[in-house]
């Protein structure tokens, strides 16, 4: 728990203490404001970055409860601010909190709006804090400091907490652990009797019923805080009606509730509430944001230092983990290198038994097997010429002038290792002797082409050029004499072939 300076201001005295490590230290009570301010200044000077919380114990408090529709987020904030401005236009110190569900069908909620109707007594303290640029954490009502005690006592329903301090007798009503209203009755300083306390309790009870803050039939539990063990008889004096219960919390009970040991347990209600404020900061703050800006910056500052420490710590751990990993990997690498050297040496010894070779076994295998596959690709025109020759055997009048043979796609594109790529050939031939009878010549050419088509593996035989241009779109000239010199005439033709050698 971080240290904080807590100040309890009432119309009669100001209590200032340092709440540190779960206990109030350097607690001083001042009836003189100047002395109190001096004490505050010296405490701030001694603890410049320590947050300050102010507890106000005054009768100038206003409480209003209002049922509002259930909304969330910015709409809720805007609605609450509007109500605060409406109810407490001139009050600087104001706030609100949710009391609970209204219990109706619409799901409305009940809010408590509270403000300090007079706050001039705060100005010197605020000015001192601002002058020293000390972080003001918040300004709270006395009753707000009681709320954690009620929650720790697990008191549900309507609970009226009574405490006597310098400023008077304070009675605060809590509904299901949440502050609803508080009232300060001025009593004489010094000891108050149980009878006086019981009378004030009765007045407050009637006030609550008459002002309809509390329905009459609602069970009410009354808790009297008695850190000095002087009000034990109060419970006996409070009228015991149906639904009313009264309990006095003496030193023992307060010790067990707060967890404080005897020496540390404050002996009066003011100190007790200062301790409670130091230990449990209330969520609702009466100080406007402009006054708590330094505190907010202070928290941010602490957060940044924590973040820096976390970043540095995580980075350090991460780096150490990396270095550990690197070291372990290096050790393992060294071990593996040793093992590899040993295996290499063993291999070297074994390799001495190998016959001398100009290349590694794998290289030789690749070369020998690869060349064997390449030999399978080797082609010659022999199969084609043999097939052509066999086709020609029935056509003595055809003479071949030119044969142009090639392996398909040989020189240009990468070939897959297919052992039987296609082969192409172009044959220029002529019919000899030729007597000018083109019809017979064309017949012979067709027969020859048909004979070639029947050859095994022949996939295409195309007559690319005929001796006679039969195209009606082309010109034609020749001689149609009966007797001609056959040496002058020729019936040349061209065939285009495609074939796949059969394996």
């Amino acid at each position: 728990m971080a240290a904080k300076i807590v100040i309890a201001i009432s119309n009669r005295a100001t209590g200032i203490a340092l709440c540190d490590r779960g206990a109030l230290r350097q607690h001083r009570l001042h009836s003189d404001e100047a002395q109190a301010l001096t004490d505050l200044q010296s405490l701030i000077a001694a603890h410049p970055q320590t947050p300050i919380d102010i507890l106000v114990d005054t009768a100038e408090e206003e409480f209003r409860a209002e049922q509002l529709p259930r909304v969330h987020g910015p709409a809720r904030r805007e609605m609450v601010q509007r109500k605060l401005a409406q109810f407490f236009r001139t009050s600087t110190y104001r706030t609100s909190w949710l009391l609970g569900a209204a219990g109706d069908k619409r799901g409305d909620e009940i809010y408590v709006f509270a403000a300090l109707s007079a706050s001039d007594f705060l100005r010197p303290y605020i000015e001192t804090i601002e002058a020293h640029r000390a972080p003001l954490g918040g300004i709270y009502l006395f009753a707000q400091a009681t709320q954690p005690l009620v929650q720790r006592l697990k008191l549900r329903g309507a609970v009226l907490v009574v405490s006597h301090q310098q400023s008077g007798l304070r009675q605060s009503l809590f509904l299901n652990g949440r502050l609803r209203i508080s009232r300060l009755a001025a009593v004489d300083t010094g000891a108050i009797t149980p009878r006086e306390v019981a009378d004030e309790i009765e007045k407050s009870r009637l006030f609550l019923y008459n002002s309809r803050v509390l329905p009459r039939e609602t069970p009410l539990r009354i808790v009297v805080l008695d850190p000095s063990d002087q009000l034990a008889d109060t419970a006996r004096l409070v009228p015991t009606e149906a639904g009313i219960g009264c309990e006095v919390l003496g030193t023992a009970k307060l010790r067990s509730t707060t967890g404080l040991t005897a020496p540390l347990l404050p002996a009066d209600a003011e100190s007790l509430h200062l301790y409670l404020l130091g230990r449990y900061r209330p969520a609702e703050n009466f100080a406007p944001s402009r006054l708590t800006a330094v505190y907010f910056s202070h928290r941010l500052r602490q957060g940044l230092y924590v973040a820096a420490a976390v970043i540095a710590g995580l980075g350090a751990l991460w780096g150490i983990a990396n270095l550990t990993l690197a070291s372990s990997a290096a050790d393992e690498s060294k071990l593996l290198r040793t093992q590899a050297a040993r295996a290499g040496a063993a291999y070297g010894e074994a390799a001495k038994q190998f016959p001398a070779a100009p290349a590694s076994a794998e290289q030789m295998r690749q070369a020998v097997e690869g060349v064997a596959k390449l030999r399978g690709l080797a082609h010659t025109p022999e199969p084609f010429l043999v097939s052509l020759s066999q086709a020609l055997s029935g056509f003595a009048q055809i003479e071949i002038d030119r044969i142009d043979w090639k392996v398909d796609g040989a020189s240009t594109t990468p070939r897959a290792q297919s052992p039987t790529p296609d082969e192409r050939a172009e044959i220029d031939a002529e019919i000899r002797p030729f007597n000018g009878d083109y019809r017979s010549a064309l017949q012979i050419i067709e027969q020859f082409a048909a004979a070639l088509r029947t050859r095994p593996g022949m996939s295409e035989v195309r007559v690319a050029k005929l001796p006679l241009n039969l195209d009606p779109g082309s010109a034609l000239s020749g001689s149609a004499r009966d007797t001609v010199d056959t040496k002058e005439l020729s019936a040349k033709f061209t065939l285009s072939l495609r074939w796949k050698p059969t394996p």
Partner: protein
Amino acid sequence: MSAVRWALLRTPLLVTLAAAVLAGSWVYFTQTRANAARQQLSQERTVLTSVRQRLAQVGQEKQLILQYLPAYETLRAQGIVGAEQRASWLDGLRAASQEVRTFGVDYQLTQQSAAPIKFESPEFQLQQSIMKLRIRLLHEADLLSFLRALEQQHAGLFIVQSCTLTRATANAFTGRFEPRVNADCELAWLSLAPKAEVKR
């Protein structure tokens, strides 16, 4: 933000920034070392696995050497593996021409280049040089004899890509001993070059 707040936050912001920079640098430095060590370890594992594998297969390797060495030496001698043996090719041409009794062989040889034939081998790259031949023959069947004779010279590995046979004269058989057929052929002489040497 007001001057008061910034004054409060300046130092912690600088401290946080410094912590982030230092932590980041430290992590980066150590991460780099860890990555390098991991990489080194991975490499050592690979090397060890490879060496162990070789050791385990040393018997098999010896068998492979014994199996392929003679054939490999033959390929080297024929110039199929290693540098081109152009002199051997020309000797082969001459010998084949004499055997078949051609009327002469003219040749043209291109410079060596990568062969377009798919040859899957991590160790070797297939190279080729294109040889254009003009062979003057008595008969077209002599071309086939010539190619057979050339192959039997074992001067290297070649693939016939194209051949064009044309009549040397326009007349029919006259009985004179002169070239009747011209054969223009294109051969691809193939050789395997170790890839390490090709890169050099």
